[in-house]
């Protein structure tokens, strides 16, 4: 039921997103959209010695995608960049407390994770193009 989805926490992150905006001169800037609805998320990252020093997201979207992006930025802030590799789709869904979304809405919840993983891959491949093949599947979320 939608009352379970649109709990106060989700609505709070939706109305008052954390880490929303742009970083000037970011180390990574990446974006993707959800072809289902046209929603877009872009993520900027500032990385220092492999640690995510700053992260901001931007974009328009539904409560689920915006709240999920907001919570995800909190989750990885000040963590090593490589943690992104290990974040699974279930981690994100549990973190936002939405473990029984239908297949369509799941894509909303996971768009930010997809973008974040794409960003990480891009970061490593830019620095070491020979790693492209090996990194290829790292951005898979679903």
């Amino acid at each position: 039921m939608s009352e379970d989805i649109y709990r106060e926490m989700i609505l709070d992150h939706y109305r008052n997103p954390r880490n929303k905006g742009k970083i000037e001169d970011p180390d990574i800037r990446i974006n993707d959209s959800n072809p289902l609805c046209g929603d877009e998320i872009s993520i900027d990252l500032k990385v220092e010695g492999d640690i995510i020093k700053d992260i901001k997201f931007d974009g328009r979207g539904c409560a689920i995608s915006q709240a999920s992006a907001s919570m995800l930025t909190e989750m990885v802030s000040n963590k090593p960049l490589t943690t992104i590799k290990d974040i699974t789709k279930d981690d994100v869904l549990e973190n936002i407390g939405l473990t029984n979304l239908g297949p369509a809405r799941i894509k909303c919840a996971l768009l930010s994770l997809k973008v974040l993983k794409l960003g990480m891959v891009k970061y490593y491949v830019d620095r070491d193009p020979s790693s492209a093949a090996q990194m290829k599947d790292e951005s898979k979320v679903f």
Partner: protein
Amino acid sequence: MQALLDVRKIRQDFPILNRRLNDGKRLVYLDNAATTQKPNEVIDAICRYYSEYNSNIHRAVYQIAEEATEEYEGARENVRKFINAKYQEEIIFTRNTTESINLVAYSWGNANIKKGNTILLTEYEHHSNIVPWQILCKSRGGKIKYLEVDEDGYLDLEALEELLSRKGDGKIKLVSLSEMSNVLGTIFPAREIIRIAHEKNIPVVLDGAQSVPHMKTDVQQTGCDFLAFSAHKMLGPTGVGVLYVKKAILEQMKPFISGGDMIKEVHKENTIFNDLPYRFEGGTPNIADVIGFSSAIKYLNRIGMDNVRDHELEMTAYLLSRIQEIKNIKVYGPKIAKDRGGLVSFNIEGIHPHDCATILNDFGIAIRSGHHCAQVLMEKLDIVASSRASLYIYNTKEEIDILIDALNHARRIFNI
């Protein structure tokens, strides 16, 4: 006034309308612009084909193959009559509206669009009536212009006339537009637009995906050169579309999908193509579903397309007036019901249409939320997405009431 349609009786023909959803709610299906539901007789026609005379058509002489061929070609005749085309050969079966438009773009477009030519579309077109032309223009060096749509969802015919009169480099070679917008709901004056274009000898493609299912179509009256539409949006099965092409144009067109069934003779070095319309139907067609579509047309004929239109008009007027009761709602498209087909797109400020649809689903309501494959229009309206409720012959005022209640519930959840 007498009831226009016996909706209660009609609803009994649609088995899905008895469906109970997960939480026991009855389905309130308001996504008819995406695809409509199917009456029993359409489903039965498909079953009967597979259970009694399934076989490949045109090329076999045994009994069930002759039966299948007769039904398949009978469907073509039914479609011809339904849109009042002059010749059966003008009716080509495709997969959907999208493939129909692609056929025009590949076959007519590649032969006629040259470097510097312009194709005129409108800002409210469905992606299926934009992307094929973008691809064509990219490969041929052509250009696309978009006729603007105003605040209230109307076109400016004077601007159209001016555009179509341009000579030289900016000359328009083709107009392609939808007779009814799948977002704004506006019904555009196809006949008038085509008259203006034909005065300048410019052919017109009509995307009838939204109009053909909902109102009487007469290709000889509107005079369109091409008309594309989908069976699945008018009670028919998925997997069948129609492309109508005026015979004189079709005769000049090269094949698109080539292979079995569309040839007369194949030799190592060359091929002689088959007569119209077979030349444009390569490979084993979607026989069962074409036959199912024929049943859908019979069903609509029995109801009468004028009654379909009148019923939708009544429902749309009701929906329009009730939805405007809702606080902070923005409704797109014409304010006047009679300028519209049976759909209404809207946004409630502060609720993303996706969230809106999720909440409505709790009420058993199926509506669409998203860009409706019309992102060019979304950009123009400066929104990412909208919600859309779209109606058909089986929808009732009670269902509209359920929708309104649910929208108010959504407002409460979001504290708006």
